[in-house]
């Protein structure tokens, strides 16, 4: 098997006085759809922040496409082609939808490439084309999520990480978001998905990691997960 695109190795990390991640390892191969599941507050978002450089790792190492990228800051990770679509969208609230999308392609200087990606994003998320000139702060929750996802796609990175893209949305909208996920998967992108809703993630995933209290509790593929109800049930503490 070829070397993984992203490899997280024995990482400890956290905030003052506390490790949120403990001895955590994970691999993501090119073209794979990997999901990280687990109840809230168990370090899923912290893991993504460590990978994208928003948070310093305490110890352990992170490799991205063969290079040691441990300790690199977020802009440098972005320049390497790592895209992080953060939880809570973190849009540029006083910029238009279009400007938000263009910020996604901040590091891409080739205008033709940017235009092609914009067309792609508009094709996948047609609502964004209609809302082009609207300020991000005036959008509904679902539209904001789509801007956040579209902004991530505009970077055209080699690995895209989504942090709970269905969080706080109405069921109909969640379905739409997952349709987008499916299409991205089919287009062959490498994706890491953080999700609290395990069943939903399981249907998509080539590989699943279950996080419990900052360490890996279980890993396997989606079908294995669906076949093991006791793992599912431990989720609810039963």
């Amino acid at each position, binding site marked *: 098997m070829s070397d993984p695109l992203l490899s997280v190795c024995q990482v400890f990390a956290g905030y003052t006085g506390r490790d949120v991640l403990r001895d955590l390892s994970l691999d993501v191969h090119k073209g794979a759809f990997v999901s990280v599941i687990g109840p809230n507050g168990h370090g899923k978002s912290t893991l993504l922040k460590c990978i994208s450089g928003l948070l310093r790792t305490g110890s352990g190492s992170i490799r991205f496409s063969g290079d040691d990228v441990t300790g690199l800051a*977020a802009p440098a990770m972005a320049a390497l082609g790592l895209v992080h679509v*953060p939880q809570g969208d973190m849009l*540029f609230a006083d*910029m238009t939808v279009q*400007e938000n999308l263009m*910020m996604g392609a901040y590091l891409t200087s080739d205008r033709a490439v940017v235009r092609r990606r914009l067309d792609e994003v508009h094709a996948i998320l047609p609502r964004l084309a209609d809302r082009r000139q609207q300020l991000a702060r005036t959008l509904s929750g679902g539209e904001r999520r789509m801007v956040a996802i579209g902004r991530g796609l505009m*970077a055209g990175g080699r690995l895209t990480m989504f942090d709970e893209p269905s969080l706080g949305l109405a069921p109909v909208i969640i379905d739409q978001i997952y349709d987008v996920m499916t299409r991205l998967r089919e287009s062959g992108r490498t994706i890491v998905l953080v999700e609290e809703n395990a069943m939903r993630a399981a249907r998509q995933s080539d590989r699943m990691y279950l996080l419990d209290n900052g360490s890996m509790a279980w890993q396997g593929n989606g079908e294995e997960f669906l076949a093991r109800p006791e793992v599912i049930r431990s989720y609810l503490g039963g």
Partner: protein
Amino acid sequence: MEVIVQVIASGLTLGAMYAVAAVGLALVYGALGMLNIAHGAILTFGGYAAFYVITSLGLPMVAGVAAAVAAGALLGLAIYVVLVHGMLSAPAFETNIFIATFGIGMALENVVLKLFGAYPAAQPLALDGAVAVFDVFIPVRNIAILVAGVLLMVATAWLLTRTQTGNAIRATAQNRAAAELMGVRVRWIYAQVLAISGALAGVSGIMVSSLTNLSPTMGGDPMLKAFIVCVVAGLGNVYGAMIAAIALGLVEATAQYLLGVRFGLATLLVLVILTLIWRPHGLFGRTQVQRL
């Protein structure tokens, strides 16, 4: 009629002048959450830089403007390198940078005093003559200030909305972490913002001194007014600051006409006090919800 033209003309001149100073402050506050009290001193430096280049070195006016811009930008950059870079991640940044730039501002003012002396000097970069509008003679320098002010506002707006740097500045101001995820090197943006703000202050120094005179303490009054403009607009709101500057310039000119020249600033101060009591985040500001 003549009175109205007079008041509007002088109000617009004042407004354009305040706008140039206030936009610099608003940019810095918007991007970094930093009140730059040294802004007035930078403005003074700009005025004197033009004076020095034109009067002492005998270079042409354009060189004077360039010198003011360069001096302002360099001082802004220096403030970033010396103070901001080290303090950004330390606790209580907002309070501490306020105190630090207050100190630096006073120190810079003292430097000007040592270099050029306490006596007021005339700004050589000033235009003479007047133009009649509806039988009212309006000095050419006022018109020049208005035109320059409007051009600078347009240029700033263009920079912020039409350039990659401008987009990065706005993005950083609105969400720092998200900007970093897009690949924006935030600290470099901060340095640029301080340099741009300093350059604007430098130009504003020429404007202010061409209306009055050069003196080491000349930055205090326009900076105070720029702060008033920013507070009324809501700190960090660049476009709000442009509008508020023009509006407050007109208010001040009206107050000066109706109440007497000495009540101009007092009127503005009372206005800012009332604004803050009525709307704690300024006219265009928004309250933010905080989670504990």
